Structures are given as structure tokens and as C-alpha cells.
């Protein structure tokens, strides 16, 4: 891999940027791989990278029906944080955040991790109680988390309405300073380039149409570009996890919903951190380009269209204008939708399945982007060793039969 740096930029400027190598190859699929990863989003690509790097497994293909990072990786609001309540979640997301913190250098690709801080607002006594519970748990789990008073918040976010007269006044917030945002495309591209460099074949425009099995174990996949044999098949197909698993007759407790996000026109810096609120439901941050990036809850109707309904946009804008009355005059530039797979306990599945050699990584709901590196790390471990890493052991499929749920519904300070 030719390293990227200011020096390589200068060097290539001399040759009018005509000699930059491809960031990744576009190979034809081989007849057989040790591992086929279905899904070329952040999770799939990170998994491929860590399979190669941590486990020395390089005879790997990542198969993507569209384009790299074209699913939820490229459609989310890019928020990264690890201040989860439950130990299981906190440890996984914290591992992920730590990987994020060195990822630009690790991948030699600037993912623009921007640790601007994440504020979770409290608007009533119940919120405050939950906030202090979470801060207390975060602290004992070694995750930075602090309480801010409305005055502190005003100081940090001058344009926010924290007046006690507000319909649902801001009564406090938790702040995770290490939280923030990153450039989502760069995460996918960075992992793709680094995985490709280690020998992983990234095959775009190739749709998996069937999962081949023999004697209760996978033997490969059928694709629109022919049959590809594989000793192991790993799903990382957010939005279609249950459909792909169905191809191997594995039923998953997952429902799929559109999730919308939207951006305003770019303006000069006006909001320096990520703000999330549950009672006044929305989250917002300002991108490095100057756009306000906004999101809220899922569309309640299930569906596979990557677009959403207008009422959800209205609800979100009400919340944003409530919190930031001056943003009322900004203009919405673009809205879009992704499809999120949600589990009954609002926690992901990173797990072996009843089918030998078939692994599933999905059900991240609205929170998958922040987990990308950590998810790839533990999923690679699970695939390579055919047993869960200690961080994803609690996220096994069996929990839905044993009842050992990790319920982030009641616990999450915000939709996550």
C-alpha cells in the first residue's frame, strides 16, 4: 500500500495526481474463499480487516450487492459514543471508541474523528434520575461521563434554549467528551483500502442470492456472479439481516424499519458538539462542512424502502427548533432514509448460528456506526475461532431463548 501523507500529496501534485494507485482492487471473485463476508459496509469491511490483521486469515472476500459503504454506513448521522448503561454494551462500545481513537493512523486514512463531546439532555425528574444512574455506571466502567447543569450547557452550547420556561426545560445533561462524530464514508473506505492491502478481495455489484449448505454447515454462497465456495460465511448486512439469514433457514427476532436523517444547508460554525435529547426527540451536530446533521427515531411502520415519511421529518424539526429556536431560519437541504434492523431488546446480535460456519452480525438498530471497529474486531474473532470474543458473548443469538436480554430500550438515555 502506498502510504498517504502530505509528502505523497506533494509528490503526486507534481505529476498532476495521475499516479495515485487504486484505493482497492476490483477483482473477479475466486472460486473459493476461507471466509466470505456478505455486506461491504463498515462492519463487513472492518471484519475483513481484523480477520486479516488479527487472525492472519486473508483468503477472504467481502461481497457487496451495491457499493461499499452504501447502506447504513453511508446514511447515518455519524455519532460515536460509548456511554451506555449496561456493562455488556458499555464494554463493547468503549472498545469500539478506543479503536476509533487510533483508526486514522491505523488505516492510514483520515476518518476525521471529531471528539467534540456528546451531550444527552435531561428534561424531567425521570430523565435526571436515569442520567445519574448512567453517569455513575459509566464512571465505574471507566468511561468518561460527567453531569452538566443548565448553566454549563448554556456555556457550551450558547444557541440552545435552556430557559426554565421551555415546554420541556433542559434540566441537565450528561457529557461524554470523548464522544463525537467521524466521517462515515472514510471509515468504510479506510477499512476497504487496508483490508484490500492485506489481500482481501472486495467484490462490489455482486448480490448473494442463496446460502449453500451441506449437512448443517455452509459450503458457500450463490451470487449474481456465480457460485462462490466458502468454509465460513459471515453476514454483515444491516437492513436485510433477517432476509439473508432466512436463506439459510435461520429465523431471527429482527424487524426492519426506515430510519431517516437529514442535513441543513451549510453555515458557519454554530454548534460545537453533538446534542441528543429523548424527551424533545432529536439529535443534532454540525459537520465539518457546516451542515446541521439531524436525526430522530425510526419510522414506526416496518419497511425496506430507503426513504421515510414526512411526519417523522416534522417531528424532528419541531424538536430541533425547540432546542435551537434560531435554527428555525436555516433550511433543510436533504433528507434520506436507511433501513435499520431492530431486535426486541434494542441490542445487536453478533453470534454463531445453528448452521455450522454461518455467522450473523446485525440488529444494531440505530446505533451501528459507532460500533463499527469494535464490531469488526469481535466478529472477526468469532469467525476465526468459531467462538465468541468475551465482548460479544452476551450478544449471542441464544439470549432470546435464555432470556438474558440486554435491554437498552428502557436504559438508553436516547434512541441510540
Amino acid at each position, binding site marked *: 500500500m502506498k502510504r498517504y501523507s502530505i509528502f505523497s500529496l506533494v509528490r503526486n501534485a507534481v505529476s498532476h495526481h495521475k499516479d495515485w494507485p487504486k484505493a482497492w482492487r476490483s477483482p473477479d471473485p475466486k472460486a473459493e474463499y476461507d471466509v466470505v463476508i456478505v455486506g461491504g459496509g463498515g462492519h463487513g469491511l472492518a471484519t475483513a480487516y481484523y480477520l486479516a490483521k488479527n487472525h492472519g486469515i486473508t483468503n477472504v472476500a467481502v461481497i457487496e450487492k451495491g457499493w461499499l459503504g452504501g447502506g447504513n454506513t453511508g446514511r447515518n448521522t455519524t455519532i460515536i459514543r460509548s456511554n451506555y448503561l449496561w456493562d455488556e454494551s458499555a464494554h463493547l462500545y468503549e472498545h469500539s471508541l478506543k479503536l476509533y481513537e487510533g483508526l486514522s493512523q491505523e488505516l492510514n486514512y483520515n476518518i476525521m474523528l471529531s471528539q467534540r463531546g456528546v451531550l444527552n439532555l435531561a428534561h424531567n425528574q425521570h430523565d435526571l434520575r436515569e442520567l445519574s444512574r448512567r453517569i455513575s455506571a459509566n*464512571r465505574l466502567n471507566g468511561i468518561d461521563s460527567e453531569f452538566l447543569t443548565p448553566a454549563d450547557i448554556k456555556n457550551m452550547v450558547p444557541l440552545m434554549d435552556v430557559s426554565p420556561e421551555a415546554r*420541556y426545560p433542559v434540566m441537565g445533561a450528561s457529557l461524554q467528551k470523548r464522544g463525537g462524530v467521524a466521517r462515515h464514508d472514510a471509515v468504510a473506505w479506510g477499512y476497504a483500502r487496508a483490508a484490500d492491502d492485506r489481500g482481501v478481495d472486495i467484490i462490489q455489484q455482486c448480490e448473494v442470492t442463496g446460502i449453500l449448505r451441506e449437512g448443517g454447515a455452509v459450503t458457500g454462497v450463490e451470487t449474481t456472479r456465480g457460485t462462490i465456495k466458502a468454509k465460513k460465511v459471515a453476514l454483515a448486512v444491516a437492513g436485510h439481516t433477517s432476509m439473508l439469514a432466512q436463506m439459510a433457514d435461520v429465523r431471527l427476532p429482527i424487524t426492519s424499519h426506515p430510519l431517516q436523517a437529514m442535513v441543513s444547508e451549510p453555515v458557519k460554525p454554530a454548534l460545537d458538539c453533538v446534542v441528543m435529547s429523548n424527551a424533545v426527540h432529536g439529535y443534532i451536530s454540525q459537520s465539518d462542512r457546516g451542515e446541521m446533521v439531524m436525526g430522530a427515531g425510526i419510522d414506526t411502520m416496518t419497511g425496506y424502502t430507503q426513504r421515510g415519511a414526512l411526519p417523522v421529518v416534522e417531528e424532528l424539526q419541531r424538536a430541533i427548533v425547540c432546542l435551537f429556536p*434560531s435554527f*428555525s*431560519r436555516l*433550511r433543510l437541504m*436533504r433528507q434520506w432514509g436507511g433501513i435499520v434492523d431492530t431486535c426486541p431488546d434494542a441490542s445487536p446480535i453478533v453470534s454463531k448460528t445453528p448452521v455450522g460456519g454461518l455467522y450473523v452480525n446485525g440488529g444494531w438498530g440505530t446505533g451501528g456506526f459507532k460500533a463499527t471497529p469494535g464490531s469488526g474486531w469481535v466478529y472477526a474473532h468469532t469467525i476465526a475461532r468459531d467462538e465468541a470474543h468475551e465482548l460479544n458473548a452476551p450478544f449471542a443469538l441464544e439470549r432470546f431463548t435464555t432470556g438474558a436480554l440486554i435491554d437498552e430500550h428502557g436504559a438508553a438515555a436516547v434512541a441510540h
Partner: protein
Amino acid sequence: MTRQANRLGTDLVAGARIDRSKSIWFTFNGRRYEGHEGDTLASALVANDVQLVARSFKYHRPRGFFGAGAEDPCVMVQVGVGAETLPNLRATQVELYDGLVADSVNAWPSVNHDVGIVNDLMSRLLPAGFYYKTFMWPASWWTTYEHVIRNAAGMGVAPKQPDPDTYDHMHIHCDVLIVGGGPSGLAAALAAGRTGARVIIVDEQSEMGGSILASRLLVDDKPGAEWLASALAELGAMEEVRVMPRTTAFGHYDHNHMGLLERRTDHLGPGHDIARQRMWKVRAGQVIHAGGAIERSLVFAGNDRPGVMLASAAATYVNRWAARPGQKTVIFTNNDSAYGVAADLADAGISVQAIVDLRVEPGAAALEEASARNIEVLTASCVVETRGKRAVEGVTVMKLNDAGDGVVVGERRFDCGLVAVSGGWSPAVHLHCHAGGKVDYDEIQGCFVPGKTLEAARSVGAANGQLDLADCLTAGWQAGTNAAADTGFRKPGKVPKGPTATAVEVSPPRHVWIIPAKPGEENKVKRFVDLQNDVTDADVRLAAREGYRSVEHLKRYTTLGMGTDQGKTSNIPGLGILAAELEKSLPDVGTTTFRPPYTAITMGAIAGRYTGQMLEPVRRSPMHHWHENHGAAFEDVGQWKRPWYYPQDGEDMHAAVARECLAARNAIGILDATTLGKIDIQGPDASEFLNRIYTNAWSKLAVGRCRYGLMLSEDGMVMDDGVTSCISDNRYLMTTTSGNAASVMGWLEEWLQTEWPDLKVWCNSISEYWATLTISGPFARDLLAELCSDIDVSNDGLPFMSWREGTVAGAPARVFRISFTGEVSFEINVPASHGLGLWQALMTAGEKYGITPYGTEAMHVLRAEKGYIIVGQETDGTMTPYDLDMDWIVSKKKPDFIGKRSLGRADFLRDDRKQLVGLFTEDPLEVLPEGAQIVDDPNAPIPMPMIGHVTSSYLSANLGRSIALAVVKGGINRKGETVHLPLENGRTVRAEITGMVFYDPQGERLNG
């Protein structure tokens, strides 16, 4: 500068749509200018010879007017000041008003002298995606780099004060919604309107007419303006037709749900007391997309200099606003439409130096127009460079080779201040695509045209790839007729003919996506695809070379089309270049997704009135004003405002709550419990329904009796609780927690409608119809007896967990003998209108007993003293009934209830689950913070294993010490053990695990 130096006289442009008799004065970048009524900010600036208006995003290169409407990628301005300022408005869309103040954005110190131009000098170092390749070393510097990047980015400045304007939402149904008030849209509206169908026709511009406003073509053998006036007069007279100018159809959502944004005062300036904008939500039977087409540019060297303009925009400035965009002009085109522009310009006295046409054979009619005006036509030629400092001063033209990838020796140089460019036309397929519509590629026109749609919608006219006026009128008329017919409206009798125009024969365009530069200069020149974001053909090709081969990768890697114009003019040229680089066909490359909104829309308008105090309705009980008048502090519980505590004479919360708690146990406490959810459940299967919803058994609950119930979700976790009473045979009154009232109602309905449609049960939410007043304490019965003569309220007459109907203080009432305090307690339900009267009667009659109103905080303390749970506080979606030590409420006999199957799962039987217990701190006055985590070993390293947390914690005045409820792993079997709570302030508190019932453990007080 003379006033409006570039305003063309009536001798040159007769039909301009400005009122020359009305002057409007405005300020741009600190200078005052004059315009006319009917002008946009752009047309007025053109008329005043202001060419440099903006700077590009990345390189800060000079930018001038490139379009004349929504398509212009560059001319963003900040309009207005203070709280009313608006960033990023497109000058081409800002209607002029007296006193308008506008400034260029993202240029410092000024648009004329912008230091950001240094980026342009370094542009060799800043190709597409450069930031992914650098700023990584040293890692800690990224925050500094980013700070600089952030300050350089953004365009206009967000206002800092709250928006003083209001916005309305409107809801409307119609049969036919027509998007676009140009010739095809108007023809469609006339056809549909005449059938009597309800028609809405919208156009984003200040007046209807579309291309007619800037065209000299005849319609029905009349000048366009004349036909337009008669058409609008006819539509205006139709009762069922609504004509909406200044209204943008911004989104087409599923099932013909259309979003419109109507601008009501923006053209008048600030200070109007009607809603500034309205968002219309339309359900249309049929939608006709007639939004026209957007002209494209050509990608040639120096094509970003101010003075390079879309040909159609040049014609629009001249014909519509009598504004001369340049004196000497060169036309550069790949199609016939620019010849008409040449004619328009020439007839307005502008010297057209030449028409440079990529094609070998332009259309015959086009050539005729040129020759009639002695305009030289250079065929198979291209502009290879533009010259000039901040604006175009001239161009160089060379012959194009047959392949279109190089030039033939021999230059022609022209002096000109305007280069009018036409690269062909792209239909505005945006709305068609929003709701899942597909596009097809039109090889000849080199554009995407609407394909299959999932909606009851059709596209016509230029929006459908029909560029000829005659075709547009015919197609529009047909579409209007058919759309109306599809909604059931047909005009009886002979089908009349629609408006007509003379068809013009045209020759096909020639598509050359990258215009060659002068030989040897390929590496020196910049050819822009996206003028806002400074994306050049080299950037597009670089992206393809580096493997960013999908259109989405291209867009995201280069930022092509990501600006505020969303690539309206740059999309197709960018795709063309990518396709060529990948050696694919353009349709194989595909297009990026078109997303709402079509043009940016005000966020406040989307929010409408439902923000600020009106974000959600405030719910208040009928006694609310009494509480207010008696000094209550309130807390938000869901949408309700509930009295939290009633401080008296300078009491703090702690003192008030202590007083209220003591009164409830020693005298009488009175609580406004109106907010409790109340659901009236009726039907022959009502008791069976309750059996399935609750964990305990309901079949034997007699009329007049009440029972406490616990509801689980499917995962076996406690979801809600409350008392349900049997009102009569087959009729129950369910109460829910205040916060869950609506969700429980939804839950019941979901099960009834989707899973158990066979059950004959009907549910009604009646929460607001009743006021609920709870009196509690040793004298509660005496007080009730005084005010209620028709119910025997003695322990035998009205035993615990029963209810009677009667009259209390003259109000018809249901009196429930239930308790959330552990004292003798009555929940009196009266019709809401009697609530305040009864409250006052109880307060008056109870005075001698020391009746004391208590709020939610005292309620919480009192119930915690008794170990009663609050769902949502002791539970969080992870607590089973067993975890709450409430095994007694789970029926072992019932065949099924929601959650039953889950209760048998292995994890539910673990004895180290977190279980609800009480906690006593070592120091009896130490009140634990709620939410504090509990550990066994406070000296364990981080991450420190946690075994539970404090769910409720209070100082109990009745007990004279602190009490807490907590969940602790295996807690039920650990009573008497000591646990540790490491607090935020670094202190660790020790506490003993106890039972949950701190007060009156035998429950003797319940019966008084």
C-alpha cells in the same frame, strides 16, 4: 456607475415583466442599488452591472450569475440582519423589496478581495479527497487542523436570536396536483379544471408562466404573455382550481402525499404579522409533474469565470427582466436551443460575436435564425479557454476533432463579456424520483427521463424530456384530461382542443463531456463540473482512477452535487465524465438518488406552530389553578403538569415534603391523582381479555371489587401496573400509570386488533373525563363520611379493594377504597367538571382534621415507605415480577397471559438476578443519590463490577431516617449484608440490605 447601466430600454425589450415606474432601492455588499418591481436580486444586480457576487466553496474563486433560478449553483447571499437574517439564499430566487440588505457569504474581508483565494493558489495540493490523505500526523494536531477546516467551511451565518416569524401548516386534498406553472402545467390545469376536478397548480416562482415568461414564442398565435393572462384568468374563475405561485413542491412522498412550501412574506421583507411561510400537506388523487427541465453547462477550460452563464439564463435576464448580462457575447452550445437565445440577445441589441457549436450539423431552423441576424456560426468547434481576471473578457475557439477528444490546429479569439452556454437539458425528474420513481436514459438528449412510477402520477412537458413548446402544450392538455378522468372527472360532449404552438424541427445535440483544452495545456487548465464545490473534471477522473467508481462514491469522494444546489446543473456532466473514464455507458453508471427537498426549505416551516410552548399540548387537571394559587411547584410527567410539592412560607422542597408526608400519616393528605390513566373496558370477553393482559386471575372479580394487576410485555418484563375494578358485568375500569396511559391503550388495541380479533372487547380512554382526588390518612374516612351520605364508608360497608357509586359533596362519584400510601385511603372519581368543587369541599370540611395537599414527591416518599413500586423507577424494562419479589401476583393456574412463556426462560430462574430490596445507610441521615451504583468491593479496579443501583431514595420524616429502594444481584437472599456505593464525589457509602417495607410492616394502618 450610472443607475442600472445594464437595464435594456423598452425599445429593445418590450415585454419585460418588471414595472419600470416603480423603483426599489436595495443594498448589496454595502452599496445601494436601484431595481424595479418584478426584479429578483439577481436580475437587479445584472441590470446594475454587478458581476462578482460570490466565491466558491473550496478555492474561493470568483463566482457570478450562472443561472436565473433554482438551478444556480453559486450565488448565495445573506439577506437581512439580526434575528431576521437568512443565510445561503440564492440571489436568483430572492425577490426584490424596498430596503433589502444582502451580502456575499464566505468571503473575507470582501467578495472582491477574498484571502481564501490562497486555497486556489494551493489547489494542486488540494485535489478531490485530499483530506482523507493528510492531517493525520501528528495525531494530536487533528483538532487544530479541524478547527481551521470548520471555520473555513460553511457558507452563510446562522441567526443567533430566536426566529421572530411564525409558520403555518395547511392540509388539503385535491384530485389533480400540478407541479409547475409553465406551458405544460397550465395546459394540464386548464384541461383538468374544465372537468370540474379539484385542481391545485403550484409554481416556485413569483408568477405563473415558467418558460413563457422569458420566451418570445407564440401560443395560440398570440404573444405568450397574452395567452398566459387569459389562461390565468380562466383558471382564476374556476371555483375548484387553486393557483399557487411562490409555492415549491419540495417532496413527493409515498401515496401521493406531497409537501408544498408557500412563501407569503419573503418578497415583502421583514415586519409582517402573517405567517411567513406555509407548509401544505397535500393528498392528491393524481399528480402531474410539469416542473420543466434544467439546462446544463459544458465542461471547458475556464468555464467558471463570472460572465459564463447558462444560455437560457441569459435569455431570461434579457426577456423577463430587461437586464443585459453582457454586451459582447459568444454562444457556446451543443444543441439548437441556444440559437433562439442568440436571436433573443441579438434582437435586444447585444452583439453576438459567434455561435460556437460542437456539432457538425446544427438544425436548419436554428441556422436560419442565426443567419437572419448575421451571426457567425462556428460548427464542430469549441471554446478552449476563457480569458479575463475576475470576469470573462474573451474566449479562444478551436475546431473539435471528429472523436471530440482533441482540437484541430487554428485558433479564433473573440472579445466578449458573456459566454452563454448550453450543454443540453435535463428534465427535473427530482419529484418523480422521490417516491421511488425510476428513470430511463435518453441517449439522444443525453439525459434521464421519468420512467416507471409507483404513484398515481405522470410527468409531462420538459420534465418528461419534451423540449418543444408545441409538444409541451399538447402533452400538458392530454395529461390534464387523463388525470382528471382517472379521478372520475370527464367533460361531457366533444373533447375540445388544447392550446397550440408551432412545432420547430431540431437536430440532436452532440455530447462531449470534457471539452478539450488548447494543445499542451491539458494539465494547466481547470474545467469545472460543480461550480459551488469546485469539482473539476480532473477530480472526477481522479476519483474513478482511485477506485471510487460508483456514482455515490464519486459524489461523496469529490463532493460533486453535495452543495446547496444539490447538483442541478452538474449531475449529468459529472456522470458523463465518470462513464467515459470507466469506459461504460452513462446509464450503466447510473445516477445518484434524488432526495427531498427539491430546493432547501425552512426548518421552522416544517416545524410549523408545533414548537416552543406548543411542541406538545400541556395537560392540566381540573384542579390545576387551585394548585397554582396555593403555590404548588410543578413537575412534568409526560404531557401533564403535576403538583410536585406545595411549599409554604419559605419552605424548601425538603421541608414541604416532610410536612406533607407527616400529614398524610397523622391527619389527612389529599392528592390530585387525575393524571392516572383510565381505560373503560367493556364486552362479553372483557374478563378473559384481562386474564390475558395481566399476570393474575380476573375471572372471579365481583362487581364492586378492585384488584391490583401487573402487566408484562412479551419478554416477561414488567411494563405497567394499576388497579382495575369491576364496574358491572362485562365492564371494567382499568387504571394505568400516568406516564404509560397512552401506550397501554395502544398496547391493548394492538392485541385486540391484531392477535385476538375474536374477543368481543372494546376499550375507551376516559382519563380526562374524570377527576381523581385521593384522601389518605387516619381521618380520611371521617371526612368522607361527612360529605357522602349514600355510601356506607365503614370498613365493612366499603372494605379495602372495593368501590361504590354514590354522591360526594353533591357530585356523582365513584369511590374506590384503594391505597398507595398504606393508610386508609379513598380515590374519589368525579366527572372532571366537578373536580375543583369537590377539591374545595374536601379542603374546607377537612380543615379541622388538618387536611394537607401533597404532591408527587410526597406521594413517592409515602409509597416507598411501604415498599410499593413505581413502574419506570423501580423497573426499567428488565425486571420480572419475581425480581420485584411479587411472585404472588403471577398466576400459576392460568393457561396463558402475555409474558408467561418468557417467565420460564433459564435466565429468569437465576438466583443472582437483580432483585428489589431496601437499603439502610449506616448514617441514618445520609440520603443516597438515586441512580448510584452498588458494588461489593469498592476497592476493585476499574471497570469495577457493579451489582445493582439505587432506584428510589428519600429522607423519611415518618421514620426519621433515610430509606432507599434498590436492585441488587441476589438481593432477596442477602438481607442484612453490607454493600458499598462509590459516589460521584469520591466518597463511598456503606448500606445494609433490608426488606422493602419500611413502615407498618404488618399493614395494620390500611384498615384504620
